């Protein structure tokens, strides 16, 4: 499913003294099949944007009460907001938002905080039962839960009757992800999927996301502060700053703008820092900013 946003704006607490513009007329297209990164520091509007993708935040024109404004004489209307995810038009009242939400999986920050059921099996089954059109048969639920737990790398038989609260941090996060992908979403959006894990846990989660991207969800969108994570994993990344999108580029081109990123208060990957430090010493290297390519390029410099 292709994601298209055009002229999308959003203001929190509109009309109150606390009104703050979180998104200012942004446009962004995410193609089907991408492993897309969203960057930006706290308050840049990135979470507001991703919450639009499965209609946790609704475009005003999709609300029941919405009445289009009639332009006064001589007034120019702002350009029309477009927001589509595959065949779903999120600006329209008649859209089946329930179906949309089963197709766009959303994994929040620290998803393990949302575990609630007595057993792992029940926890993962919850979303599946909720989104099913008719009441699903017990075997169907079991099969779906089993598939979801196995793709996230957990042993179904071993874990199904355990309490999710007795698991380790990394396992809990896997169970929480299984609970989202059990509806087989085509787009998976994750907010800081690796935050708070130790380095090994981080690597395992990123490997899991690549596996899901290959085998299960066509499009993966991750929100991350970790530039190394973006440079090593993403096909393209968008940089948010103060409600606007500054760049949409593949990491290999994005991190060539190191100075601009730093001035936006963002970090750059270590490889980009090294490239800049080398350049200052008269050594120019071109690499795509992944660690492996950097090492290869440096070794190739030797005479």
């Amino acid at each position: 499913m292709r994601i298209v946003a055009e002229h999308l704006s959003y203001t929190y607490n509109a009309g109150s003294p606390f009104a703050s513009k979180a998104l200012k007329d942004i446009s962004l297209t995410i193609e089907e099949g991408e492993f897309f990164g969203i960057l930006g520091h706290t308050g840049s509007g990135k979470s507001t944007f991703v919450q639009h993708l499965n209609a946790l935040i609704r475009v005003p024109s999709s609300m029941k009460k919405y009445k289009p404004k009639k332009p006064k004489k001589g007034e120019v209307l702002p350009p029309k907001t477009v927001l589509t995810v595959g065949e779903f038009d999120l600006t329209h009242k008649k859209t089946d938002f329930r179906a949309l939400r089963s197709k766009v999986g959303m994994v929040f920050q620290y998803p393990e905080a949302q575990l609630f059921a007595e057993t792992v099996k029940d926890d993962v089954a919850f979303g599946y039962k909720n989104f099913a059109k008719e009441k699903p048969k017990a075997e169907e639920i079991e099969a779906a839960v089993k598939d979801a737990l196995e793709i996230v790398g957990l042993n179904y038989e071993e874990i199904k009757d355990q309490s999710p609260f007795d698991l380790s941090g990394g396992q809990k996060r896997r169970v929480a992800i299984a609970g989202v992908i059990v509806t087989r979403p085509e787009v998976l959006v994750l907010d800081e999927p690796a935050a708070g894990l130790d380095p090994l846990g981080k690597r395992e989660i990123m490997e899991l996301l690549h596996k899901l991207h290959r085998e299960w969800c066509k499009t993966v969108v991750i929100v991350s502060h970790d530039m190394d994570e973006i440079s090593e994993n993403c096909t393209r990344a968008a940089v948010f700053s103060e409600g606007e999108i500054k760049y949409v580029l593949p990491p290999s081109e994005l991190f060539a703008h190191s100075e601009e990123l730093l001035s936006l208060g963002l970090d750059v990957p270590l490889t980009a820092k090294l490239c800049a430090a080398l350049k200052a010493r008269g050594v120019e290297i071109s690499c795509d900013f992944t660690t492996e390519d950097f090492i290869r390029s440096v070794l190739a410099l030797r005479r």
Partner: protein
Amino acid sequence: MNAIEFKGVDFSYSEDGAFAIKNLNFSVKEGEFVAVLGHNGSGKSTLARLTDGLLSADKGEITVFGTPMTDKNLYTIRKQVGIVFQNPDNQTVAAIVEDDVAFGAENIGLPREEIGKRIDFALKAVGMEEFRHSTPTRLSGGQKQRIAIAGVLALKPKVMILDESTAMLDPRGRREIIDVVTRLNKEEGMTVVLITHFMEEALLADRAIVMNRGEIVMEGTPADIFERHEELITYNLALPRIGYICKQLQAGGMDVPDTLDYEKLAEEIAKCVS
């Protein structure tokens, strides 16, 4: 004088359960900056909680500035040891920043004027004076965490323990916290125990210890620890990316030393290729 001393300490969370801390001998000198590394579940947080008397040891002896940890001494010790936890939202108690910072100081029954002074001092130390009358919920994660640190500082503790206090913050927030903590250590002589799994943060410490399964398995200066990278990997810890790059370049036949400073690495690479 040792700020914190553990002698043969055992601890387990359930009676028949595995040890979370096993026969631990460990000490921190006054004014020292120690980083504690270890993967999830290695016992690092247990160590922090034992130091503050939030948990009590099954066996062994814990002393803080020479005072043994007993029920009677508990409150004396807690005035000297402050902990900042991981989640900033769980550490906010009041609706206004200054009330939040004052909470601990009020609890130990300080006079009103003194509390006012402590709030000034603490907010200044973390660079948050201008937010004195703000609402904590409207602050960023890094700012909230600085408020949490200020709340601890208002008690004027001699030791500050940061239990993965930067794990939930973005890079900017993380830098803010680390800057504040290093300054307190260098300028005010505060003893700091920094529990983290960001290897880069451990580099700033005087000494680093690595925990695994409730035991200390490695100890030394951060540079020493990262030198022994094969060992680190066996404890489920990864080398910082820069360390990995050094090793790979060496393996590729380039004569660069182990370093964790990217400017230095760039310098060395430039030497090798020109």
